[in-house]
């Protein structure tokens, strides 16, 4: 076929095709939703759900925010480090496997204190989920005591009224978890049963 060319050398046929695609896209944008059910489903999932519908067999179908972040761009420096189920770096595993050697002070060769080793099991308030397990050692390996005590947690048993509803609002554990430490929807990293906690303690000893 011999198409007529304009002064830029683009054939009229190609320009018409491009215009048709653009027009179709605009029409699709302005068209109403296919059904009322679709829009009713779409509105809450956009605003509240972090994990609505997902196929665990195929990670690319995960729709939760953390999965999307995990599937997204990452700095080259983080390549090769172990990841959690979201595809985010599992820093505790990276440290345990000796893949990183972060130091505890800005200055080199500053001796570092031993981490504080005390596990706390907070019983479940509802019974619908296992109690929450807090390992001091994992936290004090990375952090100093004054990061949490006393401005976030009173260091006294029973004096901190922890609920998930305040944690997801960024209080208590949510000061770090969900922002820079592992996400809050990795439920079973904290909510483990008493027997699992006991087994973990025995394994350490």
């Amino acid at each position: 076929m011999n198409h007529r060319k304009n002064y830029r050398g683009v054939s009229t046929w190609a320009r018409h095709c491009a215009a048709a695609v653009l027009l179709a896209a605009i029409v699709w944008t302005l068209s109403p939703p296919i059904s009322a059910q679709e829009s009713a489903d779409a509105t809450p999932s956009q605003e509240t759900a972090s994990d609505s519908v997902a196929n665990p067999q195929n990670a690319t179908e995960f729709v939760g925010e953390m999965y999307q972040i995990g599937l997204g761009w990452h700095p080259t420096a983080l390549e090769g480090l172990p990841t959690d189920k979201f595809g985010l770096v599992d820093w505790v595993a990276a440290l345990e496997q000796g893949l990183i050697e972060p130091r505890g002070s800005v200055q080199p060769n500053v001796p570092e204190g031993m981490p504080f080793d005390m596990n706390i099991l907070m019983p479940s308030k509802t019974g619908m989920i296992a109690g929450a397990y807090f390992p001091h050692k994992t936290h004090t390996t990375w952090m100093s005591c004054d990061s949490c005590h006393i401005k976030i947690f009173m260091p006294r048993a029973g004096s901190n009224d922890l609920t998930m509803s305040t944690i997801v609002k960024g209080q208590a554990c949510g000061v770090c978890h969900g922002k820079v430490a592992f996400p809050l929807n990795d439920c079973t990293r904290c909510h483990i049963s008493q027997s699992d906690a006991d087994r973990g303690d025995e394994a350490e000893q």
Partner: protein
Amino acid sequence: MIKKLIALLALLGVFAPASFSEYGDVVMDRYADTMAEVGLAPVVFPHWTHRIQFKCKACHESIFPMQKGASDITMSAIIDGQYCGQCHNGKIAWDPLYCDRCHSLPQSGAGH
């Protein structure tokens, strides 16, 4: 409708280039207005690339309290050896001379 509009704009490349951010990144834009006047983007602090070499306690709480807005970080403080300048002094980490490494928040529509 709004979702479709966003999809259409994305299709047309309005949002290109894509922004790059990692979990844990902190945007510092207290001085965004004055920075914009001299053509500087707000600062993005990548928590996780720092975490490879430093534990949380290296910086928290002695250099940076873990509270949004608690640190008044300025370039004059940094070159005076405070805040980022505790490391970024050419001795522990690179000097604070490579503006776009930190002033890196992607600007929508602007050509930074």
